[in-house]
């Protein structure tokens, strides 16, 4: 047979634009991405946002402090407790409210449980985006058991509104501690099964290693925080740098990896789950007794000035900047959300890769769209 080959430079190709539209099973919400392709290779990525922009920042100016806390859990609904914790801390700092020790411990337990549920859902949907469908059901199985505990103690599964300025809404039930201990033990056993299923899987490793490389200088320049930046070697855990509510007394590691690719981001989050379980176990053994809330009298007014508070949510550094003029309603309340800054990392790491790698990149950066749009 004659050897007839056509070299790539002789082929005439054109670039075309594909719209990965707002309704898509893999974009984790309503994100529209305009991708310019040359064959299968990505040349340019342009995200379009705003399909879930509800105007929360403008609404807080007419609602007042006590009511806008309940709106914040709808922003990043997978870290709902952490969002409420952020607003409660900012208001307590400004109005000089003391929080009892039992409330602080309960808040940290709820935060870490919330981080566990968020990472379980991330694990399930990340594996589903890469092609494996079974981990979706496994991740939701563990998540449902933690949500049962949430429902028995706080009243809701998803948008809890449990952490308020002054403490927590209600005390936990008497059987909270034994049930949680049994649950943590079974989650640790299941984690070993997941390690065999996905982490040790040849196909998964080759799909994620070496893909989507984000260097440390790029991460700093783009303003990335959270597991996305910690996988590139940047130390930015707010629980260690600016600790709040008793994190300074707890013993846990900040998980940093120097791989910079999708595999490193995956490994960082899996290890963070183990660290969360470790934190909860330290607190469960000696939960302080006492009050669960300090009552606030009258209308809540903050003294005039500007305040900034930051916490570590499941996706990165979450911050609120409050400008107050002394009244009961904020003059301006700005939320610094982690996903909006991490979105800037999608373009530099995807240009030059194939389009299937674009999906894997967006899955490991862990974008939640209402967090971006507010």
């Amino acid at each position, binding site marked *: 047979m004659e050897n007839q080959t056509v070299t790539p430079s002789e082929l005439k190709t054109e670039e075309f634009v594909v719209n990965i539209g707002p309704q898509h099973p893999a974009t984790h*919400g309503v994100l529209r991405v305009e991708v310019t392709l040359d064959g299968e290779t990505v040349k340019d990525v342009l995200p379009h946002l705003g399909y*879930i922009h509800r105007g929360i920042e*403008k*609404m807080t100016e007419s609602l007042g402090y006590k009511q806008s806390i309940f709106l914040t859990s709808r922003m990043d609904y997978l870290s709902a407790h952490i969002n409420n914790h952020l607003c409660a801390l900012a208001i307590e700092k400004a109005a000089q409210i003391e929080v009892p020790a039992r409330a602080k411990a309960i808040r940290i337990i709820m935060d870490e449980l919330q981080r566990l549920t968020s990472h379980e859902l991330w694990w399930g949907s990340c594996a589903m985006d890469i092609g494996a469908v079974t981990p979706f059901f496994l991740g*939701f199985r563990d998540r449902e058991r933690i949500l049962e505990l949430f429902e028995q103690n706080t009243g809701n599964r998803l948008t809890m509104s449990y952490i308020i300025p002054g403490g927590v809404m209600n005390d936990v039930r008497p059987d909270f501690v034994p049930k949680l201990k049994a649950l943590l033990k079974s989650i640790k056993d299941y984690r070993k099964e997941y390690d065999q299923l996905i982490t040790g899987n040849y196909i998964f490793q080759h799909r994620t290693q070496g893909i989507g490389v984000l260097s440390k200088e790029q991460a700093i320049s783009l303003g990335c925080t959270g597991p996305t930046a910690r996988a590139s070697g940047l130390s930015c855990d707010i629980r260690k740098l600016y600790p709040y509510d008793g994190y300074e007394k707890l013993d846990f590691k900040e998980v940093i990896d120097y791989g910079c690719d999708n595999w490193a981001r995956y490994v960082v989050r899996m290890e963070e789950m183990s660290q969360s379980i470790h934190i909860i176990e330290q607190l469960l053994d000696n939960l302080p007794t006492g009050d669960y809330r300090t009552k606030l009298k009258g209308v809540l007014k903050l003294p005039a000035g500007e305040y900034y508070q930051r916490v570590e949510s499941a996706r990165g550094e979450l911050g609120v900047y409050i400008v107050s003029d002394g009244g009961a309603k904020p003059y301006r309340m700005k939320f610094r959300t982690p996903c909006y800054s991490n979105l800037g990392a999608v373009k530099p790491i995807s240009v030059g890769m194939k389009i299937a790698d674009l999906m894997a990149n967006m899955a490991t950066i862990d974008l939640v769209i209402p967090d971006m749009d507010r």
Partner: protein
Amino acid sequence: MDVKKEYIPEFDGDLYKDEFGRTNFIVTTIDKIANWGRSNSPWPLSFGTSCCAIELMSTVSAKYDWSRFGFEVMRASPRQCDVIVVAGTITYKMAPVLKRLYDQMPDPKYVIAMGACAVSGGPFYYNSYAVLRGVDNIIPVDVYIPGCPPRPESLIHGMMTLQEKIRKSKAYVIQKPKKNKEEDK
């Protein structure tokens, strides 16, 4: 499905009994068969915008399994599904997209409005400049499910209500064109 044992008077079913004493056919209407098929396999569109989408995903997964009701195959393209479960807030920027998806669905199609935001705007009813107050401003809704977010059991109750509504519908009734009353006079 229940089969009424009403014999048509001049039709003697006993003639057709086989050696075991059974008659091997049933008598019903076309509507009932079609509705039985339609109500037990409505395929939903994977459409979730915000928090209610997570409760929708919980209903899909193993604890509250919705594939027992026939909703198993969740298609990504609107041209292949029967029901659209609007889960989440709809903003003014997203509203034309939703209308286009609804128009692309083939008849007969149904809409479930899940959650307070899709029913009436929800917590964003007051003071928001970008939220559509209720999805029934642009598409016709069959079932409303309140809650913020509604529990998976509420969503399943809404789905069963939709199934009952499908069973009662008349699909094959041919309506004669109505005569204009002025023409008669």
